[in-house]
C-alpha cells in the first residue's frame, strides 16, 4: 500500500499525482504561510525560546570553528545553516524520547542539555565523547556513517516492548541514505512498526558529492518503498520543522510506526574545518541559500509581529556571546587525559592483558623519569 507522505494515510494510486510540496510555515522573508496539514502551535514565549537556541548554537559553532583555526580543536564539523532543522526537531522531543545524532548535531545536543564543552572533547582529542547519553537521552556521536540508524531502530523496538509512550529519533545526512545500514534500518523499523523518526538533514552535500550522486528521487520518497510515510520539510523554517517532527513523533508514540523526514537545508560551511569547498561548489549556490537563513527569517517574523523588541535581541546576543566566551575559556582549560586512560573502560572488569600492557607502559614511562633525575 502506498502511503501519503504527509498524512500517513493511503494515497490514491494515481502515479501521475504530483508529490506533496515541501512543508513551509514561514517564508524566508518571515511571512507566516498556511499549510493544510500543519500549523504553529507555539506560544510567543516558546517562539522566542526557539530564537534564543538558534542564536546560541550558531555562536557555539562559530566559537568552535575559531578554536579549531587556533589549534585548540583538531577538527570541527560546523552546523552553520542547519540550525533550524536541529532546533526545530529537538524542541519537538519529550524528555524521555531518545535521540541518536551523527556528528554535526550540536544544536540537538544543546537542546538535550549537553554542556557544549562536552561536545568539544571528541574534536579536541581528549575523549571519544564527553557526555553521559543516558543522562540526556542523547546518544554518542556516530562517525561511521549510518551505523546508528540501526541502533535507534533497536532502541525504538525496546520502547515498543516496554509499552512506553516514547519515540526514538535518529539524525543522519543525505549521503548516509546510501549506506546499507540505513536501508536496513528502514526495513527493520517498517517490519517492526518501530516508534522511530528518521530525521535526514539533506544539506545537499556529502563532503564534495552533491545529492545527485546518491539519489535520483527526492529522499523523502524513498520511504514509500519501505512502507512508511516520508515528508519533505523546509529545513530552514524552524516552525515547519517543529510541526512536522512533532506530528511524526506523535505518530510513532501512538503506534503508527516510523516516518522519514527530509529536512531540506544547506551546509553553509565546509564539510569540516579540513575541507575546502571551493574545489567543488559554486559561490552562487551559497549566496542563494544565504537568503534563506533560518535565523534571519525568524527574527523578521518576531519583529513583524511585534513579539520581540530591540532589547530582547540584544539580550539574546549578549547571552550567546557569554556562552561563546565561557566555552572558549573552559576549552583552553581542558586537560589532556592521563596516558593510562588508554586502558580505561575497555571492559567491565579487570582484564589481564590490559593490566599487563598498562603495567609495562607505566614502568616504561617511569624509566625516562629515572634518567632525568
Amino acid at each position, binding site marked *: 500500500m502506498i502511503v501519503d507522505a504527509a498524512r500517513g494515510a493511503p494515497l490514491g494510486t494515481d502515479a501521475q499525482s504530483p508529490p506533496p510540496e515541501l512543508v513551509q510555515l514561514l517564508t524566508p522573508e518571515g511571512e507566516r504561510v498556511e499549510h493544510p496539514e500543519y500549523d504553529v502551535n507555539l506560544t510567543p514565549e516558546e517562539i522566542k525560546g526557539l530564537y534564543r537556541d538558534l542564536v546560541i548554537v550558531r555562536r557555539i559553532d562559530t566559537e568552535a570553528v575559531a578554536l579549531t583555526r587556533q589549534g585548540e580543536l583538531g577538527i570541527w564539523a560546523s552546523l552553520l545553516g542547519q540550525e533550524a532543522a536541529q532546533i526545530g526537531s529537538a524542541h519537538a522531543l519529550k524528555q524521555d524520547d531518545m535521540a541518536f545524532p551523527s556528528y554535526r548535531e550540536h544544536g540537538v545536543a544543546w537542546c538535550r542539555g549537553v554542556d557544549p564543552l562536552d561536545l568539544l572533547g571528541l574534536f579536541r582529542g581528549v575523549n571519544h565523547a564527553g557526555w553521559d547519553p543516558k543522562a540526556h537521552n542523547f546518544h554518542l556521536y556516530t562517525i561511521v556513517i549510518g551505523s546508528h540508524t540501526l541502533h535507534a531502530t533497536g532502541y525504538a523496538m525496546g520502547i515498543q516492548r516496554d509499552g512506553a509512550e516514547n519515540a526514538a529519533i535518529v539524525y543522519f545526512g543525505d549521503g548516509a541514505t546510501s549506506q546499507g545500514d540505513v536501508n536496513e534500518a528502514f526495513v527493520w523499523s517498517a517490519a517492526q512498526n518501530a516508534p522511530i523518526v528518521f530525521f535526514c538533514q539533506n544539506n545537499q552535500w556529502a563532503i564534495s*558529492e552533491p545529492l545527485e550522486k546518491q539519489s535520483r528521487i527526492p529522499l523523502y520518497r524513498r520511504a514509500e518503498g519501505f512502507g512508511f510515510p516520508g515528508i519533505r520539510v523546509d529545513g530552514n523554517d524552524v516552525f515547519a520543522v517543529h510541526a512536522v517532527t512533532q506530528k511524526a513523533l506523535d505518530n510513532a508514540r501512538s503506534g503508527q510506526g516510523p516516518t522519514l523526514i527530509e529536512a531540506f537545508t544547506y551546509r553553509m560551511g565546509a564539510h569540516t574545518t579540513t575541507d575546502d569547498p571551493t574545489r567543488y561548489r559554486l559561490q552562487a549556490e551559497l549566496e542563494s541559500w544565504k537568503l534563506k537563513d533560518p535565523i534571519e527569517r525568524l527574527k523578521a517574523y518576531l519583529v513583524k509581529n511585534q513579539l520581540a523588541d530591540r532589547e530582547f535581541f540584544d539580550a539574546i546576543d549578549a547571552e550567546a556571546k557569554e556562552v561563546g566566551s565561557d566555552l572558549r575559556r573552559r576549552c583552553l582549560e581542558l586537560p589532556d587525559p592521563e596516558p593510562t586512560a588508554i586502558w580505561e573502560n575497555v571492559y567491565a572488569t579487570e582484564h589481564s592483558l590490559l593490566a599487563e600492557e598498562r603495567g609495562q607502559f607505566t614502568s616504561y614511562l617511569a624509566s625516562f623519569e629515572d634518567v632525568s633525575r
Partner: protein
Amino acid sequence: MNEGLRKAMENDPKVLIMGEDVGKLGGVFRVTDGLQKDFGEARVIDTPLAESGIVGTAIGLALRGYRPVCEIQFDGFVFPAFNQITTQLAKMRMRSLGTLELPVVIRIPCGGGIGAVEHHSESPEAYFTHTGGLRVVACSNPADAYTMIQQAIECPDPVIFFEPKRRYWDKAPVDRDLSKAVPFDKAVVARPGEDVTVLAYGPMVKTALEAAQADEQHSIEVVDVRSLNPLDEETVLESVRRTGRCVVVHEAPVFNGYGGELAARITEKCFYNLEAPVLRVGGFSTPYPPSRLEDHYLPDLDRVLDAVDRTFAW
C-alpha cells in the same frame, strides 16, 4: 601515488578509480587529484556513500573485464565492505576453479599520527592477512608508492593496498622506470646493519629508520616487509639469520597482530640463530585512543630502541 595511478590509467583503459570524493575533489588526501578531469567520469567515479557497494560493484566490474581501484576514505570505514572483501572478493578465484579473476585493488589510507578523530587512525591489516585469497601490501615511501600501486593494479589477484596516511606529505625522488622496480611481493632491506633486524612496514618503516640512525651502540638492519601476504620469507629470514636478533614494529595492536605471525615463523625457521626471542612493538589491545593520547599508543623511536635494548639484555 597520484602519478602511479595516472600511469596505470594511461597504460590500461580498463583501469577505473572508484570511491567517495575521489573525482571532483580528488580524494580527501588529494591522491586522485586531477584524474577525473583527465580521464572522465566513467573512469573516475564519485561513488555513493556505501563501502559495501564500492567493493561489491568493483567485483562486478572486474567480472566484466575492468580493473577497479577502490579508495576507502579512511581505515575505519573499510568495515562496511568487510563482507564483500572477505566472503566474495577473496574466494571467487578458488570457488570458480580458477576460471574467474578479480584484479581489484582496495586502497586504504591507514594508521595514526595525524591527530584525527576516532575511526581515522586504525591499522586493520591483520583482518585481511588472515583471509586467504587476498594479497596485502603496504608501501612506506614515495618511490614504492609509485611502483607498488602500478604492480598491484597489474596483479591478477585482489590486493589490499595500505597507504600510511601520515607519510602522504613525504617527498623523495621517484624512479619512473618500472622495469627496474623490485616486485611488489618482495621485502627490501631499507638499511643494512649487523646486530639486530628491525622488521617494519607502512608508517613504521620511517620510524625504524630513525631509530636505526639514532642508535649509536648497535648496528640496526631495517627490513621493509612491504608485502604482508605473501610474506617474502627469504629476505626476512636471511636478515635474522645474520643478525641473530629481531624486533617487529607495527602500529596495530600487538596481541594477535601481524607481528605475532612474523615472530612465530622466525622462531620456527631460525630458532638456532636467535640470541633472544623476537620482540614485538606495537599498539595496545584497546580501541584506538583519542588523538591527544596517540603519541603514547603509537610506537615511536624510543619504544623501538627500548625493544632493541631488551633483545641485547637477554
